[in-house]
């Protein structure tokens, strides 16, 4: 279909189009833009906000105004994107939305990244003809969970979050309620997000054009710890952060900024800078060993990966009968925090168990929830003290007055900083499985794996949300299933329940494309290509590293030699493994 090129006109200029789903995509491909709130390329078209209206002139002289996101392109039409008529409509829409909106922009967490604010500025809205909502009519803010804040007074009812929840996670925790001017977007019966089965993946927040859904901000607490001379603050960052953070500073999408980030974190005042990639390698050692044990001793299979906290919560709330499938490994964040709390006081002078603060930088909102899990505490204290998202660390760097782009690259601190290529690809959907296969192959066969690229497991676009691969490990065929989004994961679970599943490993990441597209990353919801470029950034680093298999990581080897003995040892279990809870029991157990 893509070969037969047709043309239409945008403001009289001839433009080619092929298989674009709507006029809006043709406009954007031509390097132009019309404003949108509800349109997200990875979600279904909704046509709710009416901001993308254009005037279409047909060859027969008929003229009509319609939303460009819902109109398929037609050959020969002339699309006027800035006519007096459509600009007037857009301005009226903006005025109506702003009349109903809590306009406290300066104290809003989305300020600067808010699309309503942006278009109000671009369209020069200075005077709103309609009466504004009274403060007394404001609805309560939901601040009940550690990850996401929901402020219904900033909602413009574009429905992007409702679609993200249903189309990515198959979950529909958020829905429209009531009718007409009383319409709101909320969880069931206006409950708080922590009282319903929300997994805190935050994709609702990632597609929200305004401050109605925001990440819970922990920047102030981290600054307080850094400025407290009695505390030693150490920091770790996830693989995806290094290819997402640059965007916040105008650096090319997908660039690996880990060296600059190390430098910036030291400038801010973190005492030691480690890397979650180190514990990603550790995770592979533990998880691959656990998998081989399950495979050889005919224990519960398929093995589910346990890196994604949204996925863990999904299992605990929706399928507690299948918790035995989950790997008992903590996530890389959980592993490194546990190791740091245990060993940093031993290795570094001046650091004690009481003055050590562990901060992690994640592309993820659910990690904030994970850090609060009772299973990940020691002596009543959380192992990870604070979780910042990529967006929050960008805010910290900016407020510290650091010119990020011009920083000189620095190395991280030893001995919890070294990593292999296998760790860095954790950030893309399929990466954990690929890393596990690289190690499992060499451990089982004792032979060197020359071609480490398992290309079938790669791909983060819309059509690669379920990937299957088969690896021959000395006659044993290991089948790997990789899924991203919980909607796809649910299909695999139903296959297992129906006895139709034939795979041994199930890797699940709740965000479409994996952590690189996590909800804590800078906004990417208007361009579905960004996640592919970020993933390529990770695979590029993998290619360029000398060591590309987790078991080759010298620091990991040293940790086992000096402290943990061997993977899945008693000590490793104490420090690196966890248990899961049946969260169904608190709610509707009798319902299913």
């Amino acid at each position, binding site marked *: 279909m893509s070969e037969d090129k047709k043309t239409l006109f945008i403001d009289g200029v001839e433009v080619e189009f092929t298989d674009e789903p709507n006029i809006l995509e043709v406009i954007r491909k031509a390097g132009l833009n019309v404003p949108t709130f509800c349109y997200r390329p990875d979600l279904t078209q909704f046509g709710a906000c009416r901001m993308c209206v254009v005037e279409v002139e047909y060859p027969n002289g008929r003229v009509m105004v319609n939303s460009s996101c819902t109109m398929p392109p037609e050959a020969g039409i002339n699309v006027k994107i800035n006519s007096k008529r459509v600009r007037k409509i857009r301005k009226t829409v903006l005025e109506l939305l702003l009349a109903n909106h809590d306009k406290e922009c300066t104290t809003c967490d989305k300020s600067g990244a808010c699309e309503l604010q942006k278009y109000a500025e671009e369209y020069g809205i200075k005077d709103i003809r309609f009466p504004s909502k009274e403060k007394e009519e404001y609805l309560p803010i939901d601040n009940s969970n550690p990850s996401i804040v929901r402020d219904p007074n900033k909602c413009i009812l574009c429905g992007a979050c409702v679609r993200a929840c*249903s189309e990515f996670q198959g*979950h*529909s*925790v*958020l*829905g*429209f*309620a*009531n*009718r007409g001017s009383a319409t709101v977007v*909320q*969880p*069931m*019966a206006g*409950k708080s997000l*922590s*009282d*319903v*089965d929300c997994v805190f993946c935050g994709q609702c927040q990632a597609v929200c054009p305004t401050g109605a859904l925001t990440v819970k901000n922990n920047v102030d607490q981290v600054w307080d710890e850094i400025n407290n001379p009695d505390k030693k603050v150490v920091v770790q960052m996830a693989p995806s952060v290094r290819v997402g953070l640059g965007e916040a500073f105008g650096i090319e999408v997908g660039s690996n900024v880990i060296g600059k980030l190390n430098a910036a974190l030291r400038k801010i005042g973190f005492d030691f800078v480690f890397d979650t990639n180190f514990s990603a390698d550790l995770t592979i050692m533990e998880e691959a060993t656990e998998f081989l044990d399950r495979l050889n001793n005919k224990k519960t299979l398929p093995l589910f990966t346990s890196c994604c906290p949204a996925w863990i919560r999904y299992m*605990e*709330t929706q399928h507690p009968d299948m918790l035995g499938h989950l790997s008992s490994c903590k996530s890389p964040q959980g592993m490194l925090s546990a190791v740091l709390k245990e060993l940093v006081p031993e290795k570094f002078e001046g650091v004690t168990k009481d003055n050590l603060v562990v901060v992690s930088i994640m592309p993820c909102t659910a990690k904030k929830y994970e850090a609060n899990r009772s299973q990940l505490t020691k002596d009543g204290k959380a192992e990870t003290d604070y979780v910042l998202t990529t967006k929050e660390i960008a805010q910290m760097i900016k407020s510290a007055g650091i010119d990020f782009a011009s920083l000189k690259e620095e190395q991280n601190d030893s001995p919890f900083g070294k990593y292999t290529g296998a760790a860095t690809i954790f950030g893309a959907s399929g990466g954990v499985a690929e890393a596990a296969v690289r190690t499992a192959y060499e451990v089982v066969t004792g032979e060197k794996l020359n071609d480490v690229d398992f290309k079938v497991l790669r791909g983060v676009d819309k059509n690669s949300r379920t990937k299957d691969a088969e690896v021959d490990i000395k006659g044993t065929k290991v089948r790997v299933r990789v899924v991203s989004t919980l909607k796809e994961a649910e299909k695999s679970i139903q296959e297992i329940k129906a006895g139709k599943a034939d795979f041994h490993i199930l890797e699940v990441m709740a965000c479409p494309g994996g952590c690189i597209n996590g909800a804590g990353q800078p906004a990417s919801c208007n361009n579905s290509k960004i996640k592919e470029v970020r993933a390529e950034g990770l695979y590029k680093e993998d290619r360029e590293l000398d060591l590309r298999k987790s078991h080759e990581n010298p620091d990991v080897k040293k940790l086992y030699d000096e402290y943990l003995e061997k993977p899945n040892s008693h000590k490793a279990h104490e420090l690196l493994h966890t248990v899961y809870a049946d*969260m*169904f029991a*608190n*709610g*509707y157990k*009798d*319902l*299913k």
Partner: protein
Amino acid sequence: MTTQSPEKFDFGKVDKIMEECGADKSHLIAILQNVQKEFTYLPIDVMTYIGTKIEGLSPATVYGVATFYAQFSLEPKGKYQIKCCDGTACHVRGSMPVMNAIKAKLKFAEGKMRTEDGMFSLETVSCLGACGLAPVMVINEKVYPQMTSDAVKIVLDEIIAQEGGK
């Protein structure tokens, strides 16, 4: 982890309704109508139950449908459900004084349309198709034609006396 309210409902009845209507998301409205017939209203827990059980639905979606249509009530109704017509014909023939008389007689609490003892509930409907009898009031399927504020008192007093009440 959806939290459950302490009130318990007979979910067996809900199961039976879902079976009769077909446990499919396209039959949601029929299911809700039958649930409302059974419980006089749509309890939050029952909606959560339906949203959890039927594939493709969620509690939030069911709640969205229930709050969209005026025919569904999220508040329990009384033993005697009064429907007062405020269609055009009834309105011009004086349905407002009738309604005010009902409210005055039954002393609803602020913002409530049901008496505290659960005996009466009141709702306004738009046209019952009996415009020749305007203004019309219906109590549990029984039609009371050509109502006046005085007639309301007589009718309600009769019911209260039947119930042996105040």
